């Protein structure tokens, strides 16, 4: 299997779906000639032309709203929001329109579309190029929310998202675009939406994470193995609808649960995982469910010492696991 970066796998997934279905098209800011500011669509404009890899005006609500209209006509838009932080002008279109269309029309109208958005900090992006926004969308029935953590999953999940008949938010850990490398299967494959994955088996503590934090958690688990702490790492992959069974199976095995997420602690997505475990696996627990997350300040600050203070990293995650293991 060839090894590739996260962003190359994402691009390959889009390339294959453009070739697979003539109704698929990409729309977003700078996705065309420039190939995207992160180069996620590099080469696709030349290969598929301006009608299938389309530069939008600089107006995010229109990227999503026009995408919805096109989807209602039978197209399969892949809408790119340049940074997740810029998704807020399109919030109304996502929450009030795309998410509710099927329900409010009693199934007469459905919106097959993918919204790709690079998220997360640690790249010197300050408050408005670093946010983790999944919790807004995992609160919204009608949407599916996917966050890949490695190249193979990213490609297979993205292809599933394009073929899904519903609106799918696809948050990509931008710090990992070129940092995270991995083997990607050759040939056609899909990774199903709605299934978690046990990335590493262990017996002492279960850690639930996704995206960039999953990558860091695997590094922490590796380090703790030398200290004789056996960590099971569960990659949630799909945040909504979440794979409850995989969560409960793991926590019943280890009896200890840590949820790691990069977003602010309060009201973050990990709170839902903690609630599921507390409600359905209370008697299996040997310790309180713990959360390790970003601090409750508005967003990631720019200056490096400030950014480092905000961001989780393998050392912080290892410390939290060590603490929980010793409970």
């Amino acid at each position, binding site marked *: 299997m060839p090894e590739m970066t996260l962003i190359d796998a994402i691009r390959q997934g889009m390339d294959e779906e453009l070739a697979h279905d003539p109704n698929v098209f990409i729309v977003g800011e700078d996705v065309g000639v420039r190939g995207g500011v992160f180069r996620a669509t590099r080469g696709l404009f030349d290969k598929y032309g301006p009608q299938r890899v389309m530069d939008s005006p600089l107006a995010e609500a229109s990227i999503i709203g026009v995408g919805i209209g*096109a989807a209602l006509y039978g*197209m399969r838009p892949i809408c790119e929001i340049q940074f997740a932080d810029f998704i807020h002008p399109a919030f*109304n279109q996502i929450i009030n329109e795309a998410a*509710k269309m099927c329900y409010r029309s009693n199934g007469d109208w459905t919106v097959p579309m993918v919204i790709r958005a690079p998220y997360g900090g640690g790249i010197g992006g300050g408050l408005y190029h670093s946010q983790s926004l999944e919790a807004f969308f995992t609160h919204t029935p009608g949407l599916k929310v996917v966050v890949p953590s490695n190249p193979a999953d990213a490609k297979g999940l993205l292809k599933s998202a394009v073929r899904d008949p519903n609106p799918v938010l696809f948050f990509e850990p931008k710090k990992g675009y070129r940092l995270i490398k991995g083997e990607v299967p050759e040939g056609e494959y899909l990774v199903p939406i709605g299934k978690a994955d046990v990335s590493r088996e262990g017996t002492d503590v279960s850690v639930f994470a996704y995206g960039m934090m999953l990558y860091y958690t695997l590094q922490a688990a590796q380090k703790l193995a030398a200290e004789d702490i056996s960590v099971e790492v569960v990659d949630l992959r799909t945040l909504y609808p979440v794979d409850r069974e995989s969560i409960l199976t793991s926590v019943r095995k280890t009896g200890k649960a840590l949820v790691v997420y990069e977003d602010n602690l309060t009201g973050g997505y990990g709170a839902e995982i903690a609630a599921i475990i507390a409600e359905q696996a209370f008697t299996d627990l040997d310790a309180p469910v713990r959360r390790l997350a970003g601090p409750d300040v508005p967003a990631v600050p720019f200056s490096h010492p400030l950014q480092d203070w905000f961001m989780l990293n393998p050392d912080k995650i290892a410390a939290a696991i060590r603490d929980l293991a010793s409970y």
Partner: protein
Amino acid sequence: MGLSNEILLDMYWTMLLARRTDERAWVLHRQGKIAFHISGIGQEAAQVGAAFALQRGQDWISPYYRDLALMLAVGLTPLEFMLSVMGKKGEPSSGARQMPSHWGLRRANVLSHSAPVATQTLHASGLGLAIKLKGDKHVVLTTIGEGSTSQGEWYEAVNWAAIHKLPVIFMVENNSYAISVPQDKQMAVPSAADKACGLGLPGISVDGTDIVAVYSAMQIAVERARSGEGATVIEARAYRLTPHSSDDDDRAYRSREEVETYKKSDPIPLTQRLLLSKKIATQAQLDEMEKRAQTEIEQAVADATAAPYPSPEEALHPVYAEEVTHA
């Protein structure tokens, strides 16, 4: 212009049916038999004139909540409307999930819309984009009140359609008020059509109580759209003869004298006078149409009253496309 006497009579019939249906809903509300009504009284000529310029059932519509006459023109029945105001099972826009007059009619290519204003105009541009990408010849009509043209999403939608010369007609039904706020507090230009020039497409302002004038303006816009020349903004000037909704009291913000003045330009008697003066219809024919409308509406009220409510478990689905059971 191609308006035969027969078509003019059909247009008047649709306006009349809309007016009497609308009035009946007000009575039902005052009788305590329905919870809410939002009216299109005063805007029937604009809506019917627009609808009849389309290839109804083939072209696409992304409407707003005052469009009862437009909906009847594309095949919604008084019974279906009465089912919706009563929240009864089988209501075709939303299965009684949405408040009344939140339209949607798949069989007539009418999109489902929400309550936050102007969102539907971006969907119209998306439809127009998809129609163009697929090489089809349909046109899209999207309607909106003049107050809602203050929304950024309206400008974004018109901008998209202008850039890509999309086959979309943006009709502004200017009824002079957005709940209580008059036009001069919504815009500095005398006509909503004037906004078009800043976005690079034609804007036409017509007397929205004159059904022939509206139809003629629409014909120009439809021809432009269908021949690939692009989008048009049409302002149809009218006056909202009722309060904003059944929950509004318009005496708080406008005088009775003002409303009485505008009743002189009520499109229903104006169109009656047109038909009589051009000898397209006799008074006896008009009287007969009144009776026919009353009979049809009373039957609709009776049938809707007798119809069942949805069962509570219907509220669970369909959140996702996979749950849609009908074709």
